């Protein structure tokens, strides 16, 4: 098995076998990331391949000392996905929907939604968010991007990114609280 540095070096020379190895290493994970944003497997597959074309084209720019390859490829994939969403006009540039006041939620609701949820339920909770909130939440929480990076990628202000994140957290808590209550009623969850 070749080391990652070796694969990258061979990819830079344009060796097809090395490109295949790199694709095999990262394509599965990157497809999953794209899928999270797009919610469609076919689109995710397509965008992942588009992203890998950019990866192979720009691999000479990658500096291993500045960051790891996984994060570099992930950033390219996220940017490719966001560009695709912008092209398809599915991504609102800077529209904030009506927001709920933080004070509208009681303290209990804020505290009781922190555990006992399956991955599918959490996935559903994220999907319940509007796209502009969902993307910011995914980028910040799941993909570990900073507000500055999010703002650049989405062409919004950092403040706007922070506001969206805050509101998405509140909505998720609301959603999980409701889910928890319905579970208690149906007897699936023991308090």
């Amino acid at each position: 098995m070749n080391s990652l540095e070796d694969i990258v070096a061979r990819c830079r020379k344009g060796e097809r076998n090395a490109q295949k190895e790199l694709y095999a290493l990262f394509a599965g994970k990157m497809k999953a990331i794209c899928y999270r944003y797009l919610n469609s497997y076919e689109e995710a597959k397509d965008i992942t391949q588009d992203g890998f074309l950019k990866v192979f084209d720009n691999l000479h720019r990658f500096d291993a000392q500045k960051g790891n390859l996984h994060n570099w490829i992930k950033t390219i994939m996220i940017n490719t996905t966001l560009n695709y969403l912008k092209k398809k006009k599915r991504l609102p540039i800077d529209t904030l929907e009506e927001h709920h006041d933080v004070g509208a939620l009681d303290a209990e609701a804020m505290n009781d939604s922190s555990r006992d949820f399956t991955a599918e339920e959490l996935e559903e909770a994220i999907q319940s968010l509007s796209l502009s909130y969902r993307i910011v939440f995914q980028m910040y929480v799941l993909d570990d991007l900073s507000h500055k990076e999010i703002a650049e990628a989405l062409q919004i202000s950092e403040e706007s990114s922070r506001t969206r994140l805050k509101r998405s957290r509140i909505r998720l808590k609301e959603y999980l609280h409701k889910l928890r209550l319905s579970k208690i009623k149906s007897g699936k969850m023991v308090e």
Partner: protein
Amino acid sequence: MKNDQDDIDHLFKQGLPEKEFPEDDWADMEHRLNRHEFFKFKPNTFHLYYGIGLAILVTAAAIIWWSSLNEPNTPVTPLSVPDSIPVLDSNRDVSRTISKTISGTTVLNKKSNSAANTKPAKAEDTSVKIPQHDTLLHQAIDSVQAETKTIRKKKINHVILQDTIPQNDTVWVQKKRKRNKQ
């Protein structure tokens, strides 16, 4: 408040493990990569494409030029000379003949027109005198006149056509100069 935020972030981070789609679709990706590399801008390949494009353009231009050269010219109807008319050397002779006819008599010399001009006395002896109102002769003369007229018209039209382009050009240049002055 900060703890709540951390809680929800932690919940989703822990609760949603990194997924993976392990489907092997390298064949599809390779096809895409080949296509991408074929159309990718590279200095060397660009020169190749540029050369091919230029060669195609030059060939097309050569074919068009060659086909325009081989294009058949507009057919010119040959002069139909009636049998009763004597053989004439040129249009000049025809006009002379016509002028003589108008004056009264027509002198036709079958051997030589020039001889008729130099020795008028002898020519009168050898020539055949034709009556003025001979219908056949008049018909022949009319047809010859008509043919000469059409030839002249064609020549004049040709000259006019040739002259129109530079004339238009000069008008256009004059207009342009006027505009520039304004």
